[in-house]
């Protein structure tokens, strides 16, 4: 893609975000997105980023940062040399470090990007904030609810921006879906069914110079809550967002029932998050069946939205066959008796109508969230609403883990940090 083509694609993407965030109620529901899209960031004096963690996710972030108009990667850091080397390929002019403290001490960066195992987020965040740097951190926020809150407290104390990676909040399809939901197109939303189903071990090959816990940190409890913090967090955030609330409590069941390979985290999770008014988010994630993939089914009294598929469905009942035949008869000039008044119910099979598209295209939601972060760093003021969404999503995912571990309903904590 040429630079001109890229700019056109970028413009088209930004326009879609602006269009989606222009609806009634959207300024309150997604203030960060409109602000980030409307920023028109200047390319001069970009925000200088140091990326900590250049594994798969970190390198994907570097590629997205390169698309932005207002951020540049000037330093990278990883404790595992092969990852660092791959990062240098993507950011050849960036200085390379194996110790994040050395990177912070070296200066020349405005903010850090954290893309490391979950259990290291809080410590790295504290170090960066204490060193006077703003922080962009991958979701989930931290391994414990207490650490999530402590990260916010530290950011407020240092006056620095803390932003968490939840790219769906910048995704035009999600924003358009929320806009249409707020316009009442699917009626009252009472339930969301969300799933992230994969059919693979979720295990990465371990090179000879690394340990399993180093590479497959997602599978071990000291470093991750597994499916809950690495996948569910995204979808619980979507649930909170569309239900415009945080859960009141969660019940759940987790098990290791297929990949019995020494991992510690569940390979099957099933949870129900309850919200005021009897509303629910029903969540499942598993690793040995991919038919239903990754989706949030946002169910209202008049329709359903499936943002991952990018579709909105109206509750249109099945056709009355006798009346359909009558209409065809009339249009060809034939009058025939209409059998009517028989069974007024029909088997309640899944509806397979295709629905309507919410819009597809080239998307750059991860790019946009970094542009938003760049503008927040420049203004030294976080994008509004974003951190609360991320915090509540992380808390909910960790609370879900507790509900499964203890086998009991967990109420929403009353001692969370105010944002």
């Amino acid at each position, binding site marked *: 893609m040429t630079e001109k083509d890229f700019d056109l694609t970028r413009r088209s993407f930004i326009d879609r975000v602006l269009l989606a965030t222009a609806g009634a109620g959207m300024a309150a529901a997604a203030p960060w997105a409109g602000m980030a899209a409307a920023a028109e960031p200047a390319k001069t004096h970009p925000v200088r980023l140091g990326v900590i963690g250049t594994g798969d996710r970190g390198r994907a972030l570097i590629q997205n940062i390169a698309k932005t108009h207002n951020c540049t990667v000037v330093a990278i850091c990883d404790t595992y040399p092969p990852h660092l080397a791959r990062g240098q390929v993507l950011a050849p002019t960036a200085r390379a470090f194996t110790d994040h403290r050395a990177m912070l001490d070296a200066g020349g960066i405005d903010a850090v990007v954290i893309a490391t195992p979950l259990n290291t987020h809080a410590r790295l965040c504290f170090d960066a904030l204490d060193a006077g740097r703003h922080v962009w951190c991958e979701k989930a926020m931290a391994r414990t609810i207490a650490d999530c809150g402590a990260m916010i407290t530290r950011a407020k104390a240092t006056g620095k921006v803390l932003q968490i990676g939840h790219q769906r909040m910048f995704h035009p399809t999600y924003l358009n879906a929320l806009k249409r939901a707020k316009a009442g197109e699917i009626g009252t939303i009472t339930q969301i069914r969300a799933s992230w189903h994969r059919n693979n071990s979720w295990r990465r090959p371990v090179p000879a110079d690394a340990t399993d816990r180093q590479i497959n940190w997602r599978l071990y409890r000291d470093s991750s809550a597994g499916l809950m913090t690495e996948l569910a967090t995204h979808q619980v955030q979507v649930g909170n967002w569309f239900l415009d609330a945080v859960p009141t409590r969660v019940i759940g069941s987790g098990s290791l029932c297929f990949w019995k390979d020494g991992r510690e985290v569940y390979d099957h999770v099933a949870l129900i998050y309850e919200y005021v008014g009897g509303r629910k988010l029903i969540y499942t994630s598993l690793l040995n069946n991919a038919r239903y993939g990754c989706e949030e089914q946002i169910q209202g009294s008049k329709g359903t939205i499936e943002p991952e598929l990018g579709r909105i469905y109206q509750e249109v009942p099945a056709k009355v066959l006798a009346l359909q035949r009558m209409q065809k008869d009339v*249009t060809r*000039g034939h*009058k025939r008796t209409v059998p*009517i*008044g*028989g069974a*007024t119910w029909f088997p309640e099979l899944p509806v397979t109508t295709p629905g309507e598209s919410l819009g597809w295209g080239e998307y750059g939601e991860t790019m946009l969230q970094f542009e938003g972060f760049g503008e927040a760093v420049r203004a030294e003021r976080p994008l509004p609403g974003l951190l609360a969404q991320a915090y509540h999503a992380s808390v909910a995912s960790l609370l879900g883990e507790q509900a499964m571990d203890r086998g009991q309903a967990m109420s929403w904590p009353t001692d969370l940090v105010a944002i």
Partner: protein
Amino acid sequence: MAVLADVERFAAMGTRVELHRFGEGDPAALAGARRAIEAVDDALTIHRPSATTVLNERLLAGQEAAVDDPLLLKALVTIDEAHRATLGLFDPAADRRLGAAGWGDILLDREAGRIRAATPLALDFGGFGKGFALDLACVALRAAGVRSACLSAGESSIAVVGEHPLGGGWPFAIPHPLRPGQTLLELELNDEAMSISSTVGAGVDAPERAPMIRPGYAAPVTRRRCTVAIDRLGARAEAMSTALIVADDDRAIRLLSGRPNRNFLFDLSQEAAMPVPPSRMSLQ
């Protein structure tokens, strides 16, 4: 020349609704008719907050209520008339505790738009709402210049505007509720509405289907009956078909004799053990 036809399908009144328009009329006529039905649904539903649920809360608390919603007031006035026209048999009022309450306990001041009840009770309009909604949809269609239309709410509530688009009445055949493939009744409608009620058949076996309640006793109707009522107004047809279901023999004869060939009652009690030919059924 081909007749233009279009259709609007949607869920309302707890069932599937289809509006078929043929020939002339405002292009937005069907949308207007749909809005009319949805407005009735919003006003009369007891399955979500509505003017009716507000009213029920007052009546259950033994309090007088002002009926501010014009659709609800119009429905109550229509019910009041239908209650009298059906010898008190059409009765949407119920007392869940004692079962003895009924519309006779209601005092409706039409002019003042106020209602109260002598005993705590609640209203459940049931199928009446479908007929009432179809009536208002027909009014909207006629006002939009439509001269030929067929409306269905759950297939047991039908209304037609004008003549069949190819001339003459609209021919309908009502299937036998217990004998697949057989017809119970054939008839024609012309600018009329029809309501079909039954205590037997596939519709009765539908999940969560509530039984018809005998007024004044709160007991389900167990007689095996199918009734058909035709009227200029769907609301009145609904009231009549329901009344015929719950009527004892004497009152059933009185209701049937008032409008021959427009009200029908099929006694299917002999169908339980062994199906019998339609000729042996009691057809009025």
